[in-house]
């Protein structure tokens, strides 16, 4: 126990000796969370819209004006006789409204108000949003300018969005970014710290020193475990106080889940380090794990949509379970059976991975 304590002290000192490292470890996660919480949004805005200016076409102008008044669209430059297709192609506009010959107002009077909308659909999400926006605006124009009341469907749904009724983007993004940052720092840094010993040759020294393999692995990994765990309240504070993301569940439960999660990521970092022989290899190995792990976790792309093999892969991905827990505990208050199930899965994964990494580590030591 004494050896372990001495070892830990040395490891902490080594990890935090460099002042730049201290900054990177504690401040960058918070900066990144702030940046991404502010910058990233799935809410499409500022789409450049063009419509052929025609002073006689009252309806088209109303649709166009209302589009620009809403924050969704901006008016795109482009002269009177521009070819709408070319405008979108050249990137001057993202979308263009093309009225039927003779103008939209006359066409509506004739009873055939066909309005064409050209959308640059290179970004699938943007294209879908633009179509939806234009439909909504045209419905509003029909109601307000043509004075035709919006038809009330005899069968209608009263839609309620639970937990995030105003669809705040930060509520969506922040738990995801938290999960991502935590896994990146712990996996990559643990892997690098262990392979560094191999690279500079101090690994042999460790073997010849009077410490057991268990002490070596605990001494090397516990500091990163602690660093990961310390990051959690910091990042959580930014999420809750900076972005107003609700924390409806219990902090203790979240902490238990987080500790289990950090155990799995540190164990993964250790496993990678036993395969790699230098820091470059362990970093590349870490990213090779992280990319699919982040991708399949449901952070940005729905898991329900993935083909079956990918879905199975996402079930064995610790990030999936941790992200689900973060969202469930923070936004929904943590539903009992769900939380228990996923925390148990995470603990199970942690135990398995720790056992595996112990074994691998011992064999590399001998």
């Amino acid at each position, binding site marked *: 126990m004494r050896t372990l304590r001495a070892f830990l002290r040395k490891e902490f000192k080594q990890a935090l000796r460099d002042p730049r490292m201290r900054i990177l470890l504690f401040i960058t996660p918070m900066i990144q969370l702030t940046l991404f919480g502010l*910058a990233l949004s799935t809410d499409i805005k500022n789409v450049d819209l063009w419509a052929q200016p025609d002073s006689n076409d009252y309806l088209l102008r109303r649709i166009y004006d209302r589009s620009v008044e809403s924050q969704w669209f901006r008016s795109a430059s482009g002269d009177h006789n521009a070819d709408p297709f070319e405008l979108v192609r050249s990137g001057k506009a993202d979308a263009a409204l093309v009225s039927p010959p003779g103008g939209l107002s006359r066409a509506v009077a004739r009873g055939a108000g066909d309005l064409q909308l050209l959308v640059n659909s290179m970004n699938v999400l943007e294209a879908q949003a633009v*179509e939806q926006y234009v439909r909504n605006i045209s419905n509003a124009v029909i109601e307000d300018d043509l004075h035709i009341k919006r038809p009330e469907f005899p069968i209608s749904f009263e839609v309620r969005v*639970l937990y995030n009724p105003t669809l705040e983007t930060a509520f969506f993004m922040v738990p995801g970014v938290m999960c991502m940052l935590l896994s990146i720092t712990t996996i990559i840094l643990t892997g690098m710290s262990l392979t560094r010993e191999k690279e500079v040759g101090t690994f042999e020294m460790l073997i010849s020193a009077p410490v057991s393999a268990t002490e070596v692995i605990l001494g090397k990994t516990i500091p990163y475990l602690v660093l990961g765990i310390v990051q959690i309240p910091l990042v959580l504070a930014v999420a809750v106080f900076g972005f107003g993301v609700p924390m409806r569940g219990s902090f203790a439960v979240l902490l238990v889940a987080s500790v289990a999660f950090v155990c799995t990521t540190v164990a993964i970092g250790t496993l990678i380090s036993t395969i790699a022989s230098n820091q470059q290899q362990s970093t590349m190995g870490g990213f090779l794990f992280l990319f699919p792990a982040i991708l399949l976790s449901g952070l940005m792309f729905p898991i329900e949509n993935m083909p079956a093999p990918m879905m199975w892969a996402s079930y064995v991905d610790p990030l999936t379970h941790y992200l689900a827990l973060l969202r469930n505990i923070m936004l929904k208050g943590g539903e009992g059976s769900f939380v228990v199930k996923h925390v148990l899965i995470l603990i199970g994964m942690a135990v398995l991975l720790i056992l595996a990494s112990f074994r691998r580590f011992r064999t590399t030591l001998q």
Partner: protein
Amino acid sequence: MSFRWSRAAAIAQKEMYHVLRDRFTLTLALGLPVFMVFTFGFAIEFNVKNVPLAVHDADKTQTSRRVIDTFGSSGYFLVDPVVSPAAAQQAIDGDRSRAALVIPGGFQKDLLSGGVAKAQLLLDGSDNSTVGPILGYVASIEAIASRRIADFDPPKPIEIHTRFLFNPELNSRWFVIPGLAVAVLAILAVLLTALTVAREWENGSMELLLSTPAEPLEIIVGKLAPYAVLGLVGLAFVYVISRTVFALPFRGSHVLFVLGGILFLATYLALGLLISVLTRRQQIAMQLAMMAGMIPAFLLSGFIFPIASMPAFFRYLTMVLPARWFMTIARDSYLKGSTLVEMGTAFLALGVLCVIIIAIAARKFKKDLEP
């Protein structure tokens, strides 16, 4: 002394052996692009389907069943009957459903008496990837159900016909895979360079290299050349897989695409070099490489999140990110078939950033070496 290609080539050769000997890194560096294109290509689908929908039907009439049918047959939802409205909400609480439909008793009666039959639809607001698309579907299901069941088809004074240009089927792969060219280059270039050069400093072999008659500039060119080659091979992999396995169109000029790739690669190699000079320790170099190179390439380049939707400050910030400009070049080359003039801004910006970053890196590198 002046720059000599022969000396740079000698260093490049040494470095090449270094890379080739290290099978593990080589496999990872070449495997990463292939792996990424396959996972991204197969896993990403923005057009949400099979959303688990908890349904409670208190009405149990022909009308209510037909409404549930409309949801089921739309292809967007998987219907899962539950015993009570509370159970429907619980299904969402426990993440077993993403949405819940609660049909109250008297639903059919309301419709037959000429009124409005109202059902409640609850959506899970904790998952951004599904809530947006579902909101879009609801309006169309409302219209379809009203037409089918109540024969209600209101006149539409203005009918909008949308033409989706450049990606008419809204194929998620066409959107994501060209962007991967940027992501792959960003990882390979900035990370590998930053780490290799930081390593030379860490174990002192940089001093050794500097004591040889080679000039600093020759050392840089020699050290970076093999990684430039690796990056280009990665780009080629992305291109070949995207065209063969995922059958993406490529409508623009290959020359421009490769030229953009080389400019971007040069910029990121210089960035990697700069990071390694500044940090000289691999762990720190890695973190900085991630902050300055990789995360911007993924999140701020317009890869998934559109730049126009960002707040003004970030819109301007992205202008100094090389990844943003190569993203434009890659996407426009694949899907739009843009010409050099049309992509002029992107090429100009990328060129200027390339020159600036190389100049800073070279200066910093030289200055640090002088005694």
